[in-house]
């Protein structure tokens, strides 16, 4: 009924301090009332148009009702509801953008505390052939860690290779680790020759993991880990498990 809609709009126009939802609720309630009143008038003999007109007149001055209604909705409340909506939105956006940061911080801490879980041994338990180690070197802002050694890893051709389990994390849990540390590291035999390596890596900004395997010349009981990239150098001798460090 257009007559009812006009009346409701005239009331709601004055209710400036209410939220759009509150205004909708007011409009609906007034409309319900007009319908009920018009129906009662019709059942006592009025025709539809006269009943609608009388129902609107019985309500009173719409602007006056609107102003009285507006006084029931303090401006402070509207401001508070708008502000809390905006704050909630900001909080959601903040959480959305910082979640990955917390995820990478978690990966970083796991890499420091228990790399076996984050790395190759998904169950956390290394195979018997793997010897867990804990070599760590600081390279720039990141740390390179050798957390496992497998002296006799059989490759697809049945050749025995040494397999090294490496990971890298940033010293600051909220910053990215350098992937280059686990990707560009090479291994040298006792004569200083670079050993042909097979590389498999995974990871994310919190921590990088890799396994690198290479054939060690017969009779040699250790190898040299060598890194030279991005202006940083690292050269460390690592004995095979069960062997004494070379002099």
């Amino acid at each position, binding site marked *: 009924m257009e007559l009812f809609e006009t009346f409701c709009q005239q*009331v709601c126009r004055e209710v400036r301090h209410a939220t759009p939802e509150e205004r909708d*609720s*007011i409009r*609906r*309630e*007034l409309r*319900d*009332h007009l*319908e*009920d*009143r018009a129906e*009662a008038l019709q059942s006592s003999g009025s025709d539809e148009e006269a009943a609608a007109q009388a129902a609107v007149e*019985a*309500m*009173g*001055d*719409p602007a*006056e*009702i609107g102003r*009285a*209604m507006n*006084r*029931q*909705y303090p401006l402070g409340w509207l401001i508070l509801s708008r502000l809390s909506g905006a704050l909630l939105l900001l909080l959601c956006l903040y959480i959305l953008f910082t979640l990955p940061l917390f995820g990478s911080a978690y990966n970083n801490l796991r890499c420091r505390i228990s790399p076996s879980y984050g790395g190759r041994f998904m169950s956390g338990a290394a195979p018997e052939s793997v010897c867990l180690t804990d070599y760590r070197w600081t390279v720039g802002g990141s740390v390179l860690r050798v957390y496992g050694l497998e002296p006799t890893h059989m490759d697809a051709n049945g050749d025995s290779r040494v397999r090294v389990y490496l990971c890298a994390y940033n010293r600051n849990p909220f910053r990215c680790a350098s992937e280059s540390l686990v990707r560009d590291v090479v291994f040298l035999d006792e004569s200083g020759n670079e050993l042909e390596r097979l590389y498999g890596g995974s990871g994310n900004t919190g921590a990088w993991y890799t396994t690198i395997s290479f054939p060690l010349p017969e009779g040699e009981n250790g190898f040299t880990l060598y890194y030279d990239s991005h202006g940083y150098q690292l050269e460390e001798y690592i004995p095979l498990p069960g062997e004494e460090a070379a002099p």
Partner: protein
Amino acid sequence: MGRKQTMDHTALLVLSLLSQGDMYGYQMIAELERQSDHTFEMKEGTLYPILHGLERSGAVESYRTQAPSGRERKYYRLTEKGAAALKAEAEQWRRYSHSVNAVLEQAMGLA
């Protein structure tokens, strides 16, 4: 001397009606007309600012449900706070009307 009447008379009537049961706006108007034998005839739209004010102050609360007509309506219910306010205001009103009557009777007696 007691404190002044703090509540609008229509608000007092609304709370009284709601103490008899939950009602929606039009039902209150119809009931008020019936119970007062058409003595109280107000501009019906003025009821709603009063209801919303009472709701904001916590004297009543509202919910939408189906009315006997089958249509959904916004019902109002008296809260404990509203019941306490009604009790205090009704007492205040009784004292006030008693005083007015006393003065009127005195005046009529002297006339």
